[in-house]
């Protein structure tokens, strides 16, 4: 213990002789640390915000739109439109074991909704009950989503998007009230829970009315689905599910299962993978910028240590004459370098955390969409570990080269140094 404290003291004076320079360098390190913490925690916040936004559409789902055949098949010409009907949902659920659930979807984008004196023209969608879980469309307390019975009995019930409910009913609770949908009275059974939805098709879920698919067919006289939504049993099974689905539908409608134009797939699983890759890229980029700032600080530390080594050459020579092995010479220099780096780093971490928390508080109160999209800056354990590791590495590197120079001089030369 005494040994260590003595070793430390042998070199401690080094920083003292150039206090001003030391403060500057510690500041540079602190600034680099703040930069890296801010950049990484904004990246983390953005990542989390994008993730919840993506979940707003639904988790690991695939959406199919109808297309036209591109290849001739079984004597049939190319260019045939493929139209799916509601019964196809049951067909694929039975024929494709890799499907966890599926729902048909029909859209009418201009339907008059009337509540008393308020009349709005909005999109109305008909869906199967499975749609609730597929598209994360959960009801607020006191309400419910469309269920099997509604579907079977073609009930005239309607589930409202939260914004639409506000526009139609104001502050009143719409559940149980009657709403005229295209002049037909419907009972409101639930209102959508507010959710962050970043990707969408056919407008935001918050601004539309949803009714049972069977009711929709009867009311608007539709035969064909606008699209079909399904979820595979697992992410890993997604490609198999897609292939089987093409085979089952291809057999019914007589198209080549390899015909990519017959049906269009929007695979959110693939999207999620890509998004992840992009986020990793962004985080690495932000991390690099922070690391570069830190490295500049590290160069400052190394310079101080070089100057200190030069200043102390003679004393190093004395230590060598007394029999100091290399580690005694290099150890004290590296220790001081690491200490200097961490002094700046600790200040930087303190400031960085404070700034992140202040910004997160501001962000939580802000109403602007841009701020909401950016997400609250978040400090995670990996960020802390990364920062401290970087600081340590930079301290070591900044001490290593001066230490190596100090230990490599001949004692006689060091002793003669003025």
């Amino acid at each position: 213990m005494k040994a260590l404290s003595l070793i430390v003291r042998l070199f401690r004076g080094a920083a003292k002789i150039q206090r001003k320079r030391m403060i500057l360098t510690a500041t540079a390190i602190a600034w680099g640390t703040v930069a890296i913490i801010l950049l990484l925690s904004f990246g983390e916040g953005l990542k989390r915000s994008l993730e919840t936004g993506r979940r707003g559409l639904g988790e690991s789902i695939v959406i199919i739109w109808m297309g036209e055949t591109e290849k001739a098949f079984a004597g049939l010409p190319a260019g045939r439109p493929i139209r799916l009907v509601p019964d196809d949902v049951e067909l694929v659920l039975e024929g494709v074991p890799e499907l966890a659930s599926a729902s048909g979807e029909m859209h009418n984008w201009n339907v008059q909704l009337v509540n008393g004196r308020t009349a709005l023209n909005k999109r109305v969608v008909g869906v199967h009950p499975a749609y609730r879980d597929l598209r994360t469309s959960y009801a607020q307390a006191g309400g419910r989503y469309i269920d099997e019975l509604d579907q079977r009995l073609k009930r005239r019930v309607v589930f409202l998007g939260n914004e639409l409910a506000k526009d139609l009913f104001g502050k009143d609770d719409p559940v149980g009230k009657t709403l005229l949908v295209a002049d037909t009275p419907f009972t409101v059974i639930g209102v959508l829970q507010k959710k962050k939805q970043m990707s969408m098709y056919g407008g935001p879920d918050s601004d539309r009315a949803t009714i049972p698919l069977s009711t929709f067919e009867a009311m608007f006289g539709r035969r064909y689905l606008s699209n079909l939504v399904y979820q595979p049993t697992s992410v890993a099974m997604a490609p198999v599910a897609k292939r089987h689905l093409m085979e089952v539908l291809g057999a019914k409608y007589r198209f080549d299962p390899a015909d990519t134009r017959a049906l269009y797939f929007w695979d959110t699983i693939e999207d999620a993978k890509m998004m992840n890759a992009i986020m990793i890229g962004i985080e690495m980029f932000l991390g690099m910028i922070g690391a570069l700032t830190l490295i500049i600080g590290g160069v400052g530390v190394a310079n101080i240590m070089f100057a200190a080594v030069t200043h102390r050459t003679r004393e190093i020579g004395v230590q060598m004459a007394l029999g100091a092995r290399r580690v005694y010479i290099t150890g004290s220099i590296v220790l001081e370098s690491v200490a200097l780096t961490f002094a700046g780093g600790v200040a930087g971490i303190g400031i960085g955390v404070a700034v992140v928390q202040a910004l997160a508080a501001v962000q939580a109160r802000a109403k602007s969409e841009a701020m909401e999209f950016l997400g609250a800056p978040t400090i995670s354990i990996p960020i802390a570990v990364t920062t401290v590791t970087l600081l340590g590495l930079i301290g070591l590197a900044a001490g290593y080269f001066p230490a190596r120079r100090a230990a490599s001089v001949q004692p006689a030369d060091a002793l003669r140094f003025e």
Partner: protein
Amino acid sequence: MFWNGKNGKNGGKSEGNGHHLIDLQGIRKVYDTGAVKVEALRGLDLAVRENEFLAIVGPSGSGKSTLMNIIGCLDTATEGSYRLRGEQVAGLTIDRLAEIRNKRVGFVFQNFNLLPQLTAFENVELPLLFKGTPARQRRERVELLFEQVGLSDRMLHRPVELSGGEMQRVAIARALACEPDIILADEPTGNLDTTSGRDIIGMFEDLWRKGHTLVLITHDPAIARRARRIVNVQDGTVVSDEAVA
């Protein structure tokens, strides 16, 4: 004065005609300062037995300090053979050389070379620390050494708070810390007034009587005559080597 240490260890060996403690043969040292090459030592031979008290004299620039650096393993010869207690020094690793300086050689410099940020006590403790001596033994040894140089009441002072003579006595205590085979002193009285200088030389004589081997570099003929053997170096070679009557 009482010196613990060398008597028993060296008593029998010093008169033997076996290995020399120091054995230099054909030593050349060339300083290469880029443009010019200075040949400080030109094929110098020198042998020193245990318990000798040797003075090295010669004009300024003749190579005395260079010789001392090589003997003390602070520098390496360009050419020639140097054996220290039979061990060939050329080609040893940096850490092995450090170990030799630590355990076998004690240095006393003209400008004392005490570390200013440490107390006198810690300065003397340092070589023991490098050697790896446990804390308790270190403290006992350092206290004993301070008693021997008569500075027990100055142990906790910083070097700046000491006089030149006191600093040199601390330096001698430090040189003795690890019980070295040789004590090398390069102009130890050069920065001292006549009285303190005489004290220091008296101390060296005592050390020699107790069995230590001393190599003393000096300009002063009066001091040189206190030694038992005078080696005269000129232009990097030994020009005369005689015992003092």
